[in-house]
């Protein structure tokens, strides 16, 4: 008898992913940036740098960095910040750590909530479904982008008054809460429709007819069939939230100095673009590279997991 090789969907996906050269390359780039971000304290120490130290000797009397490319040197590979004289390399490393953290926490949280509510709506239907549906309709109607800007500062004060987190901690918490609050309905809708069609599938019916509890059906039968959707959504929402964090800190909502993120650096850099274009281009290039790599990785993951697209 000829052997029929049965592979699990995970194995098939992994095999497909491994064949995708762009996917592998982008995964390596993403890992590299993650290493830079989360190894920031270590790396900056190796370079003998600090993200809060002001290297004022490197600035001229108008506060501009001395030397080409915004003061690029062996000591300061990305140059110095005009005005305050901080090391741009360390600023961006620490900044990307914040950006990554926001993106990861937000994506995971909104997928978690979306998953729970989506399954609940799709599996139980009826009133629960209607309630969740109406609520997400309502959320969609709010101009979320503007609301985040308008409400984040008062919200920060509220959160600080709780006394758990303060300052940038509170600001990030608020930003993440807002992102998740406005972010889950998208995924929940996706999950809901999938859960509804799964519910009608034979294996779920079979489990139901055998008297399996709803909890068991959801965790043992439905979740394993929904995880590829979640992974694809995760990989595509990471770059989105990363960029969103940059946009909000660019607009002055979100993190404050002495911490720094891409958005903050960029909003500062455009004031110096004529005198110090490198200070604008370096963070631009780094942010674009990260988002690009994440997008490519997301595409590869989707291609590997999505059975529909050939």
């Amino acid at each position: 008898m000829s052997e029929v090789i049965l592979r699990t969907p995970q194995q098939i996906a992994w095999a497909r992913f491994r064949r995708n050269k762009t996917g592998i390359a982008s995964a390596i780039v993403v890992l590299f940036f993650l290493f830079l971000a989360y190894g920031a304290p270590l790396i900056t120490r190796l370079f003998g740098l600090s993200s809060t130290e002001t290297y004022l000797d490197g600035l001229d009397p108008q506060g501009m960095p001395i030397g080409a490319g915004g003061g690029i040197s062996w000591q300061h590979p990305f140059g110095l910040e005009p005005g305050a004289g901080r090391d741009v390399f360390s600023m961006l490393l620490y900044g990307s750590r914040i950006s990554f953290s926001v993106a990861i926490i937000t994506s995971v949280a909104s997928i978690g909530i979306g998953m729970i509510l989506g399954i609940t709506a799709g599996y139980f239907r009826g009133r629960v479904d209607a309630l969740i549906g109406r609520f997400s309709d309502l959320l969609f109607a709010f101009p979320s982008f503007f609301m985040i800007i308008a409400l984040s500062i008062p919200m920060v004060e509220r959160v600080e008054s709780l006394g758990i987190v303060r300052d940038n901690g509170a600001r990030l918490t608020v930003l993440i809460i807002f992102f998740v609050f406005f972010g889950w309905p998208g995924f929940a809708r996706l999950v809901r429709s999938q859960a509804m069609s799964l519910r009608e599938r034979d294996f779920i019916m079979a489990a139901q007819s055998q008297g399996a509890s709803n909890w068991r059906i959801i965790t043992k039968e439905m979740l394993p069939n929904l995880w590829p959707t979640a992974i694809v959504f995760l990989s595509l929402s990471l770059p989105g939230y990363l960029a969103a964090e940059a946009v909000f800190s660019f607009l002055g909502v979100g993190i404050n100095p002495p911490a720094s993120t891409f958005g903050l650096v960029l909003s500062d850099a455009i004031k110096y673009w004529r005198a110090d274009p490198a200070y604008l281009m370096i963070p631009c290039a780094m942010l674009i590279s990260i988002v690009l790599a994440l997008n490519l990785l997301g595409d590869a993951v989707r291609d590997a997991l999505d059975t529909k697209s050939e």
Partner: protein
Amino acid sequence: MSKFLEVTNLNVSFPTEDGEVRASNEVSYSVGLGETLAIVGESGSGKSVSNLAVMGLHNPVRTKITGSAVLNLADGPVDVISASADTVRRLRGKSMSMIFQDPMSALHPFFTIGDQIAEAWHLYNKGSKKDGIKKATEMLDLVGIPDAASRAHDYPHQFSGGMRQRAMIAMALVNNPSLLIADEPTTALDVTVQSQILQLLKDLQKEFNMAIILITHDLGVVAEVADRICVMYGGRIVEDGTVDDIFYRPEHPYTLGLLNSVPRITAGESHRLRAIPGQPPSLISLPSGCAFQPRCEYSTKVSSGACASTVPSLSDKGSGHLSRCHLDAADLNNLVKDKA
């Protein structure tokens, strides 16, 4: 005299990352006007693939097709395999038509039934929009849709499954084609509706004098309507004969297995249903010998292990009854009797 459609040595394969999927191998069959050819086989046996090739419906980029399929039209024969894509397109609908298994998904959900039929008619006939709808109504009436004039303005989702298939048939026949390929036309339908549709096809065949190719996995369906039957397995035709040949004098172990797995009430005697053990072969890595060999209970009876090494040829065992087996018919019959 040559038949209307003559398919000779048709090979269809799809190159994929995992290897070449050889969906149809050296397939030959023919069907004449007024005749019904049934092609029977499990899913993946190559029966649809071959006929889609005849219709020219494969994606040319992703499919490799060799062999020939000649339509003997009034103005001369055309080989649809070697003909240009545009030539074949002009034959579709007019000279040959096809209906599909799931009439729900085969009809465009956004257009009315009448529009979809009229669209096909307008392709080969000059006439106003009104004429088109009139023709569509006529056809719907012909395929037995009550109140056809108003139903022509309905959308597919407003039709029941059987009615959709009737509408599909009406659409396929609107240009009076000489060949109708019906790909599992009844599989998605209720049993009572199935026979109605089959009867309809039979009636229409008489009216239009069409050649019909009925693709099915259901031998029960075949007995009522077919003149000839081709049994396919693993991308090859394994047996080809008249209805009587196949049902009463099967010469291939796979056909035998198929017959044994069909419940027969008429037989009146105790009959044990028997499934064929094992799985259909992978079309990427076909067994080197007979494709059915791994599942064949008689393969051990063939000396020198020819079943595993050599592909048996499709040989005429007499009076146009063809079979692809190393065992000859008499030996097989004996073996069957022994077992019983």
